[in-house]
């Protein structure tokens, strides 16, 4: 076997592609341009075969219809852990007409004009990754009205790459911090739809078109899309994908609104279920309503979760977010083991800092309960389970997470940091 794992893209309307030469295969199932589900198989279970693909198609496409057809109760509203509440009844399922035609119409749609889109990519000392990202953007079905690259490096390392691509607005923001960089992008942007991605992704050709279409169909403040793995070539990437679940994200659209906020708030409003900063888009009005990104948070500052903290504010102020898996980007996970450990530590530190910020700004004690009770319980449970199963790698990741949690606790005792509560930059 050459690689520990491989990603295979399978269009359920076509013949099964060849089985990659890898011990584990992550199949991403598509229905034309529509991503509908995934499945992990070991080599001995492949090829899946026609009958099995047929059964997979029936199950996944039924989920798509239930999640996308208004006549069947769509869009579904997120509940605990971000899982959608079931609303389908036998009567509606039995009466739903033209099933074959509806299935056909899901597979592809005409592109939407993305002239209103300002696409903002923040980068820091990763010119090669940024170049790969910009190449993928050239293949968008609908090009954005403007493309802004915010260079968060001290020395302006992205300037050279950006000059090789035409139509790129280059902004240099040397003060470190992802939130700071994103806010610089927002202030520069002229479009009514502001789309964010990171330098370590490649976009699916229909990505921007689907974001524009979704804003046209739903009156929501924010849209998050699906973040799929671009490749699984190293053990660290596999661990992030298979054990940690990568960026999660449902394959059916899910609405996160005041109902979700009310339902999950007693357990620490699970806003991180909404999506990932690598694939999110806002209407301009969202920033007018809730302010910009909190510059105390995010990579380069406290770690991460500047995205979910903004979603928290939006929901707390009556806004709503829609997860639309049709908008797809492919993410290059951290390749080395040390980078993954560092990432998990920083994620946890950022998560804790965002919880402190939310508790301070909104008096939400459940956020503190998550820091002091839920997270330690998760550490103990995961630790015991990994010990029992002899999973050393999971334990190492857990230790990194615990370190991040301890670092995060320090934000509780930083009076100056906390004094800036509820002071968000504005447009």
């Amino acid at each position, binding site marked *: 076997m050459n690689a520990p794992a491989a990603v295979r893209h399978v269009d359920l309307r076509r013949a099964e592609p060849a089985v990659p030469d890898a011990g*584990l295969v992550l199949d991403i199932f598509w229905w034309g341009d529509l991503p509908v589900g995934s499945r*992990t*198989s*070991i*080599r*001995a*279970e492949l090829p*899946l*075969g*026609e*009958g*099995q*693909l*047929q*059964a997979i*198609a*029936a*199950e996944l*496409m*039924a*989920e798509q*219809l*239930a999640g996308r057809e208004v006549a*069947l109760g769509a869009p579904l509203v997120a509940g605990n852990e971000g899982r959608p509440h*079931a609303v*389908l*009844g*036998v*009567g*509606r*399922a*039995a009466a*739903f007409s033209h*099933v*074959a035609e509806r*299935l056909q119409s899901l597979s592809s749609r005409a592109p939407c004009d993305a002239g209103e889109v300002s696409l903002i990519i923040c980068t820091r000392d990763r010119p090669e990754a940024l170049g790969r990202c910009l190449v993928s953007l050239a293949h968008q079905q609908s090009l954005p009205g403007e493309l802004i690259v915010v260079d968060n490096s001290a020395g302006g390392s992205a300037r050279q790459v950006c000059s090789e691509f035409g139509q790129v607005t280059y902004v240099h923001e040397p003060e470190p911090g992802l939130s700071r960089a994103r806010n610089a992008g927002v202030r520069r942007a002229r479009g009514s739809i502001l789309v964010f991605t990171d330098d370590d992704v490649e976009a699916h050709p229909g990505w921007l078109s689907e974001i524009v279409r979704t804003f046209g169909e739903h009156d929501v403040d924010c849209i998050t899309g699906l973040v799929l793995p671009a490749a699984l070539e190293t053990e660290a990437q596999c661990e992030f994908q298979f054990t940690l679940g990568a960026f999660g994200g449902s394959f059916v659209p899910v609405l996160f609104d005041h109902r979700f906020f009310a339902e999950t708030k007693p357990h620490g409003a699970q806003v991180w279920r909404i999506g990932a900063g690598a694939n999110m888009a806002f209407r301009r009005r969202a920033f007018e309503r809730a302010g910009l990104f909190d510059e105390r948070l995010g990579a380069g500052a406290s770690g991460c979760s500047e995205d979910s903290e903004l979603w928290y504010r939006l929901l707390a102020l009556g806004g709503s977010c829609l997860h639309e898996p049709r908008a797809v980007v492919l993410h290059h996970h951290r390749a080395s083991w040390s980078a993954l450990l560092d990432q998990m530590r920083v994620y946890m530190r950022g998560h804790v800092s965002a919880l402190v910020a939310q508790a301070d700004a909104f008096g939400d004690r459940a956020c503190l309960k998550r820091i002091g009770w839920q997270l330690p319980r998760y550490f103990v449970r995961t630790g015991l389970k990994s010990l029992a199963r002899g999973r050393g790698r999971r334990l190492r990741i857990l230790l990194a997470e615990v370190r991040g949690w301890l670092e995060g606790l320090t934000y509780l005792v930083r009076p100056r940091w906390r004094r800036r509560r509820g002071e968000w930059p504005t447009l």
Partner: protein
Amino acid sequence: MSYRLIDLELSGPITPVPLESGQHGFGIVARWRGRPIGFHLEEWPAGALVGADELASIADRHFAEAVLAARVEDALPPSAAGDGRSGPTLSIAICTRNRAQRLARLLRSLDELRPEPSFAGVEIIVVDNGSTDDTKGAVARFAGARHVLERKAGLNFARNRALSEAKGDLIAFLDDDVVVDAGWLAGLVSAWRSRPDAGGFSGLVLPYRLQTEAQLLFERRGGFRRGFKRIEFRAGNYHNPLFPVGAGSVGAGCNMAFDRRLLLDLGGFDEALDTGAPLPGGGDLDIFYRVLRSGRAMVYEPRYAVHHEHRETLAELQRQYWSWGLGLMAFVAKSRRSDPELARRHRAMVAWWLGDQARAFLRSVRRSDLRGARFTLAETWGGVMGFAGEYERSRARVAAIAAEAS
């Protein structure tokens, strides 16, 4: 204490169902256009009417997704895997001993099936494992069934006899305590069509009735159910690193079918397993395991369904759990030696199984479910006996039986 079984066709109007005075609830077999899509048990006041609205709301909660999935499946172009191949011939083998009435019930249910044009031919072989009742007469009353006598007592002797008598490309085994569902034959065809190169097929096992406390308890504890989705099994599984050891998730021996030539190549069933009284189990696990290890797939198809008459008394049920433990561990002990390549998985299976039994026992004790705890102990004790040399003891017994017969 009994439950009423309700066959609920969801493509038509739902009508109220009255319960009798002794019925404290009901079990629903939900269908969409005849195809079973779900099962659900519900407690209910004895003797009360189950209104149409109440049934509809239960159906909404438990079966709506399955209805939609069935409709999507019908709308998708069918799998073309089996197209262009001429339909196989089928031998249906029923192994029986002293259950003339139940056998007649099964033969009647087979008689009522619509002929399935996809099969080039169907024969029914009843292997009589030394009955002293009117089994022969019961078979004679059905024109399509052939009676074969196998004197060597033991289910796998009977199954191997059926294998040598059969002519079909596929051979389907049925126990005498089931009746087939109206979609049984069509379900087997559709499973074969979806994977014509599969080594074997298994199907859904629903309760025939929930008349006694033991039958209800068995179903509450999960019964034979393996779900309502078609599943393919191969010789490994990402989600279950022990697979195919403990291949019980594949199906149950009372309703299984195989490529007959493959079974002959594999040397048939292991006659030291499923031998009746001394070692009544493990034979199905063993054959599923060997088919999968030969590199061929096993397909579980819910439309290929039977209705099984569960054990009627608590004592019989307890014995069944004991025999499950015995059969499983006798099989593990055997195949650990015959298949050294997977010896580690066999060892891990024993450890996992003991832990699982312990967890089930503690769960029962916590809920003060003493009967459940007893069942678990019986199964564990069976397992310990099975692992402690039962397979060798059985082989000696079987050799004696074979020698005596020749």
